[in-house]
């Protein structure tokens, strides 16, 4: 069992780097172990952890199809434990945001350059820029560094028009005069539009270096880390979810998500759920819902609606890692040798060990 040490305040550099990943609220560690900090509720009433674990075992025992959903708020360390847990209970993993498009499963490469490459471009072509750069830290960072910008619409007609123009004449404006061009796609860009921009970029490479960079959703947090960790541990790109029910990982149907199929009878939200997370699937919630993550779960209030809730106070900095949207791995602390371990990863490891089916 690890004992937290008093964490120092994070450096400006750390906060600057992590601002491109998500919204962190520094929280000073208190010197307690994760077990002393954990709180649990069953049916809205406070219980001891052991009682909550018994309830969790019971729910899992009677579940034909448990699913761990959310995940994007988890560190890489916590994600590893979550994959192990899903595997051990023959469950499902459904990352948020839910992407139900068949194209998403078939086009896992959403960007062809890291942020540093975009910064070094002669020209940034903003696709569908409608003010989001002012709110989005990644877009703002690009806008601050750009030498020259062009703006085009975020619709299929526009990109098809660009393809017709540039493929016939790669020297046409606004691309022609430049050596290195970055196409920046907006958060939530339609797959059909994004794939056309990728196709155009690939075709132009023999005339102009063109990269495609997609701005992540404002709450995406470690969504890139989720995709990477789940892919390297299972071999399955998780756009539409991963199903361990057969004893080995399989991609869920690319036509519909597990949640839309109502295949899930136990929903375990792992990581601090977001409002968007709750709204990311259609239809009624399945029979039982469990939340495991950081408090406050919603607007500073505990999640009283859940059948079971196991939470830890948010802690930062911790000796854990997340990924920036372009795959750069960042520590969530200045010095991982002295920072406390991620308590959520420890909690998930404990829950996995306690509930694993044999």
């Amino acid at each position: 069992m690890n004992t937290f040490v008093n964490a120092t305040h994070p450096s400006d550099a750390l906060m600057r780097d992590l601002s491109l990943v998500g919204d962190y609220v520094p929280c000073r560690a208190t010197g307690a172990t994760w077990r002393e900090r954990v709180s649990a509720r069953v049916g809205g009433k406070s219980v001891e952890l052991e009682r909550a674990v018994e309830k969790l075992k019971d729910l899992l025992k009677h579940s034909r199809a448990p699913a761990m959903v959310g995940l994007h708020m988890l560190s890489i360390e916590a994600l590893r434990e979550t994959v192990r847990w899903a595997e051990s209970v023959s469950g499902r993993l459904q990352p948020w945001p839910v992407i139900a498009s068949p194209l998403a499963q078939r086009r896992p490469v959403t960007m062809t350059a890291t942020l540093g490459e975009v910064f070094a471009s002669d020209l940034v072509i903003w696709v569908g820029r409608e003010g989001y750069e002012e709110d989005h830290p990644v877009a703002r960072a690009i806008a601050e560094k750009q030498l020259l910008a062009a703006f085009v619409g975020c619709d299929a007609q526009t990109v098809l028009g660009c393809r017709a123009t540039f493929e016939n004449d790669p020297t046409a404006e606004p691309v022609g005069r430049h050596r290195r061009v970055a196409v920046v796609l907006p958060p939530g860009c339609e797959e059909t539009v994004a794939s056309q921009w990728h196709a155009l970029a690939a075709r132009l490479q023999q005339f102009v270096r063109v990269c495609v960079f997609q701005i992540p959703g404002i709450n995406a947090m470690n969504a890139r880390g989720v995709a990477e960790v789940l892919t390297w541990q299972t071999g399955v790109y998780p756009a539409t979810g991963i199903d361990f029910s057969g004893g080995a990982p399989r991609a869920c149907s690319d036509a519909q998500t597990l949640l839309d199929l109502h295949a899930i009878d136990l929903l375990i939200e792992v990581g601090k759920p977001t409002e968007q997370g709750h709204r990311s699937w259609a239809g009624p919630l399945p029979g039982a819902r469990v939340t495991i993550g950081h408090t406050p779960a919603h607007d500073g209030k505990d999640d009283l609606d859940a059948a079971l809730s196991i939470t830890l106070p948010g802690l930062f900095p911790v000796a854990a890692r997340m990924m920036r949207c372009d795959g750069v791995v960042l520590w969530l602390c200045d010095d991982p040798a002295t920072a406390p371990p991620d308590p959520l990863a420890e909690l998930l490891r404990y829950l996995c060990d306690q509930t694993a089916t044999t």
Partner: protein
Amino acid sequence: MTDVLHIKNGRVFDPANTPPEADGVRRDVYAVDGKIVGKLPEGARPTRTLDATACVVMPGGVDVHCHIASSTVNRARAMQGEEHASHIHPRKLEHNLRSGSGMLTPSTFVTGYRYAALGYTTALEAAVSPSGARQTHLELDDTPNLDAGFLLLCANHQHVIERLDKGDQEGAVAFISHMLRKTGALGVKVVNPGGVASWRRDATHHTLQTLDDQVASSSVTPRKLLQLMARVCESLNLPHPPHVHCNRLGLPGNVATTLETIKALEGRRMHLTHIQFHAYGQNNKGDFTSGTAQLCDTLNAQHHVSCDVGQVVFGDAFTLTGDTPLEHLLWKLTGRRYANVESELEAGCGVMPITYTDKSFLHSLQWSVGMELMLGCHDPWRVLLSTDHPNGGSFLAYPTIIAQLMNKTLRDEQLAKAHTRVQKHSALKDHTREFTLRDVAIVTRAGPARVLGLRHKGHLGPGADADITIYHDNPSDPLAMFSTPRYVIKAGQVLVDDGELRHAVKGQRLAATITPDEKGEALFTEYFRGGSYDVSQFGLHEHELKSCVSVKG
């Protein structure tokens, strides 16, 4: 408690420690607490004895060049949904083995399990960008059973080229030294030196034709970059020389570039990787021919040069390379799904599936050229087995390749299925050499360990890691023999027992021993001020570096 392993009465092949005539002699092998010992310590009793009477005992296999852990490999996994769906690996509760999927680019746990099941216990990830090093460490942490290191992509780094352009070789060496140390790399990877940087700067500069072409309108040339990388390896006393993927990979007549690359290093040590892809001649019609005759003559004479073959295997493969202009060219030729990703002005990596078919003249020639190189070079210590996994094919094809090297009949059977032009003109049919078990032990373990500078790997002498593979003694059926080892032992622990993987252990990270360089750190910090993240987030922290096994040159 002391863990003592006794391997009894096996035919031992340990080329690093025994002359040819002593290989295959029956003897016992002992390991205490994960290390080989010459004899059992006084009073010690074996905690486990394995009867190897009908078996051949070799050191654990060492893959000198493969792609198993990086953001690029992960991209390839993600792109192969159908392949992964058809190769699933269920969890094995009884042995506490994790599940996974994939054959060409398996998930991390499965990669470790499958390597061990083939008798391999060490591997080198061959291409990692500096900013991607953290992900590689994370993936290697999740790859059991393999001790592994990686090579850092250095030769197309924008700042390295800028330093060299200013004539500041010292600064470039210091800068690279700092990157290597901070990332926990085992060595330097040189990919299409200058070619990737040229293409990064100007899309119309797709291919550098000679070693003296200018890189990105600078005074830097591929020759200067090669010489710089050799200097880096020498001055830092790295365990492994520059690991060179030459310019003009896959193009007709590129053997001339390969020979020029050897000359460019003027007698310094170098390792030429996947040399099969760089061994093509060209006839007067511009068609591909085999360039192996010239290349074998040179390799036989130049004892400072080692290489791995990059053997092509017929069937599905996946190209995965830091040579981004090449990957783009391949995409234009085949139109298959592809992605090229550029990283922080350091390097790039491309991925695309490929299928090698014996109906294709070029693919047949590539298979033949690989075999000709392995058989035509006299010194197996310097011409090592690889498929450049998964570029030429999966590492799972190693038993097939070994069988063809050991048995001319099997080779001839494959040649008979090859494209008719290759059947007619290939020099392969004239090669009568058949690999011995000693040759196999050299090209798959002793040689790679020596070339990589891993003194504790690839042999069974006292002090070596107790990584041991025990095969059924059946050289008349080499495919069966090398496909299913009887036992595989990693650091003294039995992983494969009776041909079945029953255990997994955590592998170690192998990093070159590099003294901190203040000048390099200062240069790097200054350069990184313009980066997209803070320099403190680059590479590994000191406590992470301490967890790596430090490999001295």
